[in-house]
């Protein structure tokens, strides 16, 4: 169906959203770009507020040139797109996207919606993770990148993700003391993943460089550890952890940054009725879309919001999804040659990510062995024991995760399960000795993030 003046909306102005907008403009469209942040760039290429003077090299390291290119591209588009920064896209229904800015809701009708909503840290709780001074890796990186401040003076980095080494390195470079980098994955997992990782030599080399640089700086790196507890009364004072096959060790620190990979911000895709499947490689529920970004009639997904691929894959998938969108709108065949080239690059990048997922596995055993008194859902202060009790109760719905939510309140708070959903599912499944993929996922509902009660509708 050819349309004279199609209404095309892009949500997100990170690498995927920017490249999508660029491609749409190139094909004669004027998309509306909606972004929560005050400035474009997304999380990875987040820009500092006006007046901050760190150079792009200091801010983005190896990726400075890419960051500059994304920023330059978007800045060059502002006259030929409609751009609404500081705007939350909080619901989608019947081909209308509901946006909120400064407590005013504006419904936006669309013919095509391209969701490039990015990702957040994938969280796995451990005792003490809610103490002030414990941050996610992504959060601690944003503090450094955006505000130029460190979340601690003497820090421990913990988890299973490439970001673990990168953020530790960035903090060390910025002058923080890195007391330890604790990788929950065994070193053998990395060795096994090497063949897949070699599909992207430059990324692989950067990873090795980061690890070597931490070594040179004298940072202790340990593999195969398990956190026992963060210590401290009202702030972080130290971390206890267990080495493989050995006893407990305690390390002094005033901040812990942790993370276990990324999870897509897929709530809008859910509300737009996209299908979801449990992906065993990435060990989470992912919205289903074709490699070219098509995810339903008039719905396109790109970047980490669709599947975790990293910034380079986000750029490629953003442009690719835009080309699919253009073709579907009937504006001609799009650019077939370009689409084929982009698809080829994307599949190589995705292969690399699958390798990373193997090198940095999700330690499901941590959720299973989490003590009963540890908090899982911090919004509602629900403990692991309460989740287990809820799913083991007769006529409690087994471990179907929405039933577990109904009875234990997990995922009912401000974050709506974006952070506790996966670990609650893991705990529920383990409590009934079932596979996590069989317990389902929390159903999405709008608003996907809080909106003020005094919000007014503007039409």
């Amino acid at each position, binding site marked *: 169906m050819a349309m004279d003046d199609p209404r095309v909306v892009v949500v997100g102005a990170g690498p995927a959203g920017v490249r999508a907008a660029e491609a749409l403009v190139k094909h004669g469209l004027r998309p509306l770009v909606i972004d929560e942040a005050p400035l474009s760039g997304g999380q990875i290429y987040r820009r500092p507020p006006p007046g901050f003077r760190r150079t792009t090299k200091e801010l983005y390291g190896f990726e400075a040139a890419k960051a500059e290119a994304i920023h330059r591209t978007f800045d060059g588009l502002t006259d030929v797109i409609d751009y609404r920064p500081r705007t939350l896209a*909080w*619901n989608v*229904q019947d081909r*209308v996207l*509901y946006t909120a800015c400064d407590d005013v*809701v504006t*419904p936006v009708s669309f013919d095509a919606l391209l969701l490039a909503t990015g990702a957040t840290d994938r969280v796995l709780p451990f005792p003490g993770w809610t103490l002030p001074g414990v941050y996610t890796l992504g959060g601690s990186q944003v503090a450094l990148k955006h505000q130029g401040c460190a979340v601690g003076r003497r820090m421990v980095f913990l988890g299973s993700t490439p970001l673990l080494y990168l953020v530790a390195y960035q903090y060390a470079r910025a002058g923080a003391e890195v007391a330890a980098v604790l990788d929950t994955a065994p070193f053998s997992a990395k060795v096994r993943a090497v063949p897949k990782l070699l599909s992207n030599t430059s990324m692989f080399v950067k990873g090795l460089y980061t690890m070597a640089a931490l070594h040179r700086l004298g940072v202790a790196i340990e593999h195969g550890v398990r956190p026992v507890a963060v210590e401290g009364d009202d702030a972080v004072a130290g971390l206890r952890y267990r080495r493989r096959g050995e006893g407990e060790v305690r390390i002094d620190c005033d901040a812990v940054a942790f993370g276990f990979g990324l999870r897509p911000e897929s709530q809008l895709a859910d509300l737009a009725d996209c299908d979801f499947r449990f992906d065993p490689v990435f060990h989470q529920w992912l919205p289903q879309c074709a490699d070219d970004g098509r995810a339903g009639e008039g719905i396109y997904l790109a970047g980490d919001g669709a599947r975790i691929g990293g910034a380079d894959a986000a750029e490629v998938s953003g442009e690719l999804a835009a080309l699919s969108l253009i073709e579907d709108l009937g504006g001609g065949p799009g650019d077939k040659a370009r689409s084929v080239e982009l698809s080829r690059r994307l599949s190589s990048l995705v292969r690399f990510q699958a390798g990373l997922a193997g090198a940095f596995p999700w330690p499901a055993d941590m959720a299973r062995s989490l003590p009963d008194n540890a908090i899982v859902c911090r919004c509602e202060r629900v403990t692991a024991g309460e989740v287990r009790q809820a799913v083991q*109760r*007769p*006529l*409690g*719905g087994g471990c*179907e995760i929405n*039933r577990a939510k*109904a*009875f234990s309140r997990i995922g*009912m*708070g*401000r974050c*709506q399960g974006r952070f506790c959903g996966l670990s609650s599912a893991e705990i529920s499944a383990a409590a009934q000795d079932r596979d996590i993929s069989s317990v389902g996922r929390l*159903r999405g*509902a*709008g*608003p996907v993030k*809080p*909106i*003020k*009660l*005094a*919000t*007014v*509708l503007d039409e």
Partner: protein
Amino acid sequence: METIGTDVVIVGGGLMGCSAALDLSRKGRSVVVLERGFVGAQASGVNFGLLRRQDRFLPQLPLANRAVEIWHRLENVVGEDCEVEIRGHLRFALDDEDMAVIEDYAAGAREYDFEIEILGGETLRRRWPWLSDRVVGAGWSPDDGVANPRLVTPAYARAARAAGADIREEHEAVEMTHDGGGFRIVTQNGLEVRASIMLNTAGAWSYHVSANFGEPVPLTAIGPPEAVTEPVPYFIEPTIQRVGSPVVVRQVQRGNVIIAGKPRGIADNVTNRAYVAPRSTLANMRKALEVVPSLGSLNLIRVWSGIEAALPDNLPVLGPSLTTPGLFHAFGFSGHGFQIGPAVGVVLSELAIDGRTETPIEPFTMGRFADYEGEGSDA
């Protein structure tokens, strides 16, 4: 194929079905409950939790009064704490016209032994200073309140099971027949149940049961729009609702303020999903602020819905089938079934055992739809 013979088979494990199962079991009858999903997961579990009698269809008050008596001792009935809070319901007026409606209703309710206290604006603000200045008066029913709907039906189901009921979740009735000897029900997973009495308490799926026995009804699936704020210190004790407005507000003791209203959203009883229309959310937020202006700075953090069933006259069907002896219906509660639920269960139990009940249920007869020939609706 597993075959069970039982006195009563109940199709639908919501509040009506599970409370009937408990009463029947305690009276020594054998009971099988067939629930296609999980007990209390739809209308019974996702509603606002309102135990309100004001503004209820007057001839329904005997049933509602009977339910009040059960709610007040629910913990003893089911053996679990279901967060029943009897803190009163305030139906308020913004003008004299509203006030006249409240007074009229109070006069009618008195005929049914339901006493509503009329409070003036001054009294209201002295007692509940957070109420908007615009409120001129209210009807006050202190014996009404709230309960946690997510907890109530599973608690009934567990109590019924403890009393001997055979409760089967994920058992959808796919074949239903009646011959001289009684009912034969077969589930999708191959369970066969034979019973002399059958109760249809299948909520939004009741149409399939009634139509199967030659009683089609114009039943539609609806989704109540419910929304909740972040928690703040507890200050709203009663449930509050303006005359003529569908918006009702309450606060749970842990702090969240819950707002419900209309219009009801899209509910799909095939895919089992119910959506809250964003415009409903916004409209209900605005209405809530008219009543309690200080809520404006709170964040709305979550909405939910579920699948309820409504009939065109907004009244349920409760009573015997007009085509099939031994079959009794209870469905189509049209968004106000929770409060009367426990009494409906007892009434169904009485009907199943004695074929009659002391509680007047004539207005809810299936006969209202005797001429109906159309289809019920899936979504």
